[in-house]
Structure formats: C-alpha cells, structure tokens
C-alpha cells in the first residue's frame, strides 16, 4: 500500500464527499442562485479531487488527469457564472431572505 | 437484451413523434430520436459479452479478447450522416417559419400528411 495509493483513496473520498454535499445543497437551497452555487462547487472541487486521486494511484495516467483537472478548473466556473447571469436576465425569483443585489446597483447607475 | 429493447423503444418513440406531433421542431426531434435509436442498435449488435474495446494498448494485446470493430465504424459514419441530415432539416424549418410564420403543420397547406 504505497503512500500515493493512500493519498489517492483519501482524495477520492473527499471528492465523493463534496458530491454528496452539493447534492444535499441542490435539494435544500431556496432559489436558483444559491442552488447554482452548490452545483458548481460539486463539479469543480469534487471532480478535481477524485481525478487527481485516480491520477496519483496510477502513474501513467497522472499527466492526463492533471490536464483534465486544469480543463475543468477553466471551464466549470465560467459556465456556472454564465448560467446564473442568464437566470438573472430571465428574472427567476430570488428568495425573500436576499440582503443585497449588487447586480441591480451596478445596473442601476 | 435490454439494449435491443431500449433501442427499438427509442426508435418507436421517434416514429410516434413523427406521426402524431404537429409542431415542426417536434418532428425534427422525432427524426433525431430515430437516428439515436439506430446508432444504439448498431453498437449493441457489435457487442460481445466480456470483451474489451478494440484498441491495442500496452496491456491489451490479445486480439481475440476484443469487441467487433465493424459496427463501431458503421456507427461513426451513421452519427455524422444523421447530424448533417438534421442540420439541413433544421435549416428548412427556419425557412418555413420565415415564409409561413407558423410551426404548425396544419397551417402549411401541403404538409398535412
């Protein structure tokens, strides 16, 4: 049981845990914007840690998994923000508990 | 056996949409479903139980442990042909909407079949 295998398994476990967290987040959070935030968290953190974990366990696909991880880091947040912005444009309802709406202020002046 | 049944089911759904639906976009979706169903049928015909993908690599060198490559080659062709057909069909739908202003077949005289 080499050291990298142990690290690999722990990383994959963390990844799985993040997926679980975001699944719960998707269910419980009230409106689009918070739920979207949970979804992007799962794709970025969960996926990256499990991929790096697999990369650590098998040496010859380590480079590929690192490239894959950087790709996910690049694309996932962008699509998340684009989705949320589209949601805002379509005027999807915000929960009553929202405190501040930076976008309207910027839009307002 | 589930793969054959589901492939035929998807083709059935596609043909059902083609016949029943009145909306042009739904008809195009029906055609796309038929193509997807056929692709699933072709690949599942080529599958052999307990064999791996037909790509030689350092740890897979034994040719007798591989799935049939020919249906996969046919599916590659069929996917691209399906996509280009439907790109043309979508172009026709947009032009029809521009000329007739509606997506409903019943209003476009000769399309009522």
């Amino acid at each position, binding site marked *: 049981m080499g050291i990298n295998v142990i690290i690999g398994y722990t990383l994959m476990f963390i990844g799985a845990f993040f997926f679980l967290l975001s699944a719960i987040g998707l269910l419980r959070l009230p409106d689009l914007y918070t739920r979207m935030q949970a979804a992007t968290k799962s794709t970025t953190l969960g996926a990256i840690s499990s991929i790096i974990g697999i990369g650590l366990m098998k040496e010859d696909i380590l480079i590929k998994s690192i490239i894959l991880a950087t*790709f996910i880091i*690049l*694309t996932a*947040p*962008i699509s998340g*923000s*684009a989705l949320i*912005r589209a949601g805002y*444009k379509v005027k999807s309802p915000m929960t009553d508990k929202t405190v501040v709406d930076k976008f309207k202020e910027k839009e307002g002046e | *056996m*589930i*793969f*054959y*049944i589901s492939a*035929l089911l998807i*083709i*059935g759904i596609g*043909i*059902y949409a083609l*016949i*029943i639906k009145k909306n042009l976009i739904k008809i195009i979706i029906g055609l796309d479903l038929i193509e997807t169903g056929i692709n699933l049928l072709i690949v*599942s*015909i*080529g*599958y*052999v*139980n307990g064999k791996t*993908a*037909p*790509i*030689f*690599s*350092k740890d897979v060198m034994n*040719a*007798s442990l*591989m799935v*049939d*490559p*020919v249906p*996969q*080659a*046919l599916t*590659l*062709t069929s*996917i*691209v*042909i399906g996509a*280009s*057909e439907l*790109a*043309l069909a979508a*172009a*026709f739908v*947009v*032009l029809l909407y*521009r*000329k007739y202003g509606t997506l409903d077949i019943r209003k476009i005289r000769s399309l009522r*079949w």
Partner: protein
Amino acid sequence: MIRKIVYGVFILIIIAAIAIFMSNYKFGVDKMDVGKYYLDNTVPQTGAANVVTSVTLFYRGFDTLGEVTVLFTAALGVAVLYFMGENKRKQKLQESNFVTKIGTRVVFPFILLTGAYIFMHGHLTPGGGFQGGALIATGFLLLYLAYEETSIDRKKFYLVEGLGGLTYVIIGLLGFFMKGSFLANVLPNGTLFDLLSGGIMLPIYIGVGLKVGSELSNIIDDLMCEVKCEEAGGEE
C-alpha cells in the same frame, strides 16, 4: 386521421418484426465474420493501434470518403438555404458578460489544441478526424457566444475545407497510381504505438479533422448569421 392510424400500425409492425428478427441473434453473441479478419491483421497490415480507425479509414476507406462528402453536401445545402444575398444588416445582440469573454479567451486555444490532439492521435487512442473536427467547431461556437461581433473569414475556411478533402482524395489517388487500387497504403507502416505509425491514416485524419472543423464552423457561421442578421428588406 385514418391515414395516421394506418401509418402508426404500419410502423408498429416494422418494430415488432425487427424485434422478432433480433430474437434469434442474441445480444452479446459473437457474430463476427469479417470483424475477426480485421482484428487479427490490423497491426501487420496497417500498423495502427486503434482497430476501429483502421476499419473506418483503411479497410472501408471508401465509406468514410462518402461520409466526408455527405458532410460537404450538408454544409453546401445549409449555405444555399440560408443564402440572403448581400443585403444583410447586423442586428444588435445582448452584451455577453465579462466572465465569459475572458474565459473564452483563455479556453479557446486549449479547445483547439485538444481537437488537434484527438485527430492527430486518431490511430492510437479513441477518437479521430470527426471527433477532433467537431471539438474545433465547438471552440468556434464558444467564440460566437462570447463575442457577438465575431465573423469568421469564409474564404479561408472554404480553403481549409477544400484542402482537407483534397488530401483525402489525393492520397487515395496516390494509392491508385502507385499500387493500382484506390486508397492503397503507400506510406510505411512504422512501429506500433508511435505517432508516425499507421501508414496513410495520419495524413488522412489530419485532412479530415481540419475539413470537419472548418465545415461545421461554416454551418455554425450560417446559423449564427441567421440569428444575428435579419434579412434586410421585406419578404416576397
């Protein structure tokens, strides 16, 4: 209404007939005849590691030539149908947000790189000309979504499209003139698993990858122009 029921019954009969026909060709049973030949002597004859690519390109290369023509015809068909003459005027689109703009500028080269990687390694790893070309086309699609003033230079894309198709046909003709039969393998097979193996497959898939990439970008450019520019002047 009756016609629809007739068609419905007719189609259901076909599906039931196919199901019955398939019942005596069980799932997962080895039905290979020609497939076994391809599996056994892909490596000696073509030197490619990916058997599917060797079947699509070398043994059944004529099919893929037809498929390249199908995509070529579809691109021409869409261009003919969306042809609006010269009187096009650009319509003002929504300003897309800042994050997508910067993100696209970062990601776009990566997408092209991955697309090129996929069609360069068609004969080693899964993937090939069509998948790589489609990826490149998604890169251009991303460009269109982020910057609405993008418009690709159709002349250059037609040039790349034509050259891609021509490499395929010329390599085939080389096979014809040197070895007597179209698409015969004229280049050395090289050793397994390294980039320059696979004889004629590498140059063909480079040509096909560039061709599919530029062709699908042409189709996307027609579609995006459909969205952006209304036809000036009234309809007839």
